[in-house]
């Protein structure tokens, strides 16, 4: 239950957090958590969560590559995914997916990305989805078929968008890829690069693409990373007015798929039941009413994806 005085406390907490952020910059998010805790504003669990957030923001890899270079890594990861999967050719479904996905991105922390957010359907029954650091997002037919309504598809897309916004892909690049010669090469203007620097950069680029592709397709992210993406998804869809519990409905269906020996997503993602539990926690106290006109969303969802 939220009382007026607790609202006031929250406001003060936010103000303090923002003031500290302004003073220290985002590199000290974990420090902010400590400050808020010391002031008695947030509890230990929240400190832990903020520490996780801080670790991500500080990620040296994502700070080593420019937005443009992250986009280029993303393009190559996308090419390697499209080397393993065929696109599903359906203009109406693809257009709908892009409109919905790009609209969702407007409500994310990063509506504008170097090359924007783009969505493609992969022709596979497997349940899977991938998001590259460049904003290329892929959903298999199998994944899309888990969604029975627009808000459920929105929840899946918002989870992938959150991976992009939070730079999870770049975070999976091994720190050993960044050698001192690469760091110096990255600081050199293009026409002043030596041959050795170009070789070093190309090796790092290639290794980085491999690391991201390997993580997306084979090894998967950590539980904490997936939990962040779920939190981001909940935030995006609820801020637009979709029912934020839509993600739970999708996960419930995913759970039964997993029981029948699911591939892909089941292999690279935490147990859906675990995710449902932490999303339940996130939804505590949130108004679950949907602001969406269900006649409109049902009609356009059916028209676009009915043939899938």
């Amino acid at each position, binding site marked *: 239950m*939220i009382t007026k005085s607790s609202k006031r406390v*929250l*406001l003060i907490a*936010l*103000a303090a*957090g*923002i003031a500290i*952020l*302004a003073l220290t910059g*985002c590199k000290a998010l974990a420090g902010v958590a400590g400050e808020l805790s010391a002031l008695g504003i947030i509890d230990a669990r*929240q400190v832990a969560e903020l520490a996780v*957030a801080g670790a*991500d923001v500080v990620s040296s890899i994502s700070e080593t590559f*420019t*937005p*443009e270079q992250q*986009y280029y890594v993303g*393009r*190559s990861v*996308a090419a*390697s995914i499209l080397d393993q999967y065929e696109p599903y050719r359906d203009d109406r479904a693809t*257009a709908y997916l892009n*409109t919905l996905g*790009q*609209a969702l991105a*407007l*409500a*994310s*922390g*990063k*509506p*504008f990305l170097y*090359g924007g957010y783009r*969505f*493609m359907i992969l022709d596979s029954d497997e349940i899977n989805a991938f998001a590259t650091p460049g904003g*290329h997002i892929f959903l298999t037919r199998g994944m899309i078929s888990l969604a029975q309504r*627009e808000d459920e598809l929105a929840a899946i897309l918002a989870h992938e968008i959150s991976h992009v916004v939070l*730079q999870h892909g770049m975070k999976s690049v091994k720190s050993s890829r960044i050698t001192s010669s690469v760091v110096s090469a990255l*600081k050199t*203007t293009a026409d002043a*690069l030596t041959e050795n620097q170009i070789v070093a950069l*190309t090796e790092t*680029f*290639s290794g980085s693409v491999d690391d991201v592709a390997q993580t997306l397709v084979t090894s998967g992210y950590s539980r904490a990373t997936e939990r962040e993406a779920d*939190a*981001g998804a*909940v*935030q995006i869809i*609820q*801020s*637009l*007015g979709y029912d934020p519990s839509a993600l739970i409905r999708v996960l419930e269906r995913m759970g039964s798929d997993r029981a029948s020996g699911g591939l892909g997503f089941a292999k690279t993602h935490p147990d859906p039941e675990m995710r449902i539990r932490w999303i339940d926690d996130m*939804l505590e*106290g*949130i*108004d679950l009413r949907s*602001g*969406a006109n269900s006649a*409109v*969303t049902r009609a356009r969802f059916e028209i676009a994806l009915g043939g899938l």
Partner: protein
Amino acid sequence: MHRTENTCRPVLLASEVIGREKGHGVRNLDALRRDEYTIRGGHCMHKSIALLTFFLLLSPAFSFEVGDEPAVSVRSGDLRSSPGFLANITAPLDYGESVEIIEIRGDWLRIRVANSPDEGWLHISVVAEKESMRLEQADSSSTGSASSREIALAGRGFNEKVEAQYKSQKDLDFSLVDEMEEYGRSIEELVIFLADAGLTVEAGSVE
């Protein structure tokens, strides 16, 4: 404390669909201007408590102050007449262009483009700290925005070169990636898509 409003502010108001001339052909945009958009602020703090940690996760990666001079971090950005996704576009912005922040409202920055008469609004995610874009050298040695743009463009050529080498090494086909990148939608289309279903995107400009 403008960042507080990031998660908790009134959503897009009819009056926030700014700068479009009356009689514009798209009926839905006209509808957006009317009072269909109500302020959904009632549950705002409630949500904020539950989402306190989450909004920090999805907040833009940089925090700026008035006077800061970040650079454009998207391939092609838009300068707008007012803070809002649907505001009129007044000038294009190129990757690497230096801008000076003169006002901050929510997630929107009023900026002046370096060595240019252009002034207007952009979303905070359109720019990044120069350091993250390897543009600091350009600043110390340059006499103006032309040279910082030159550096950014030079970098672009280099990245394409690296991609070409990678492509030939791995025998990868990028044509589908190129095709995918053509799937971009206009922001107007996106806002109309949301509005058709009674959904709203925060304009970010309401204080």
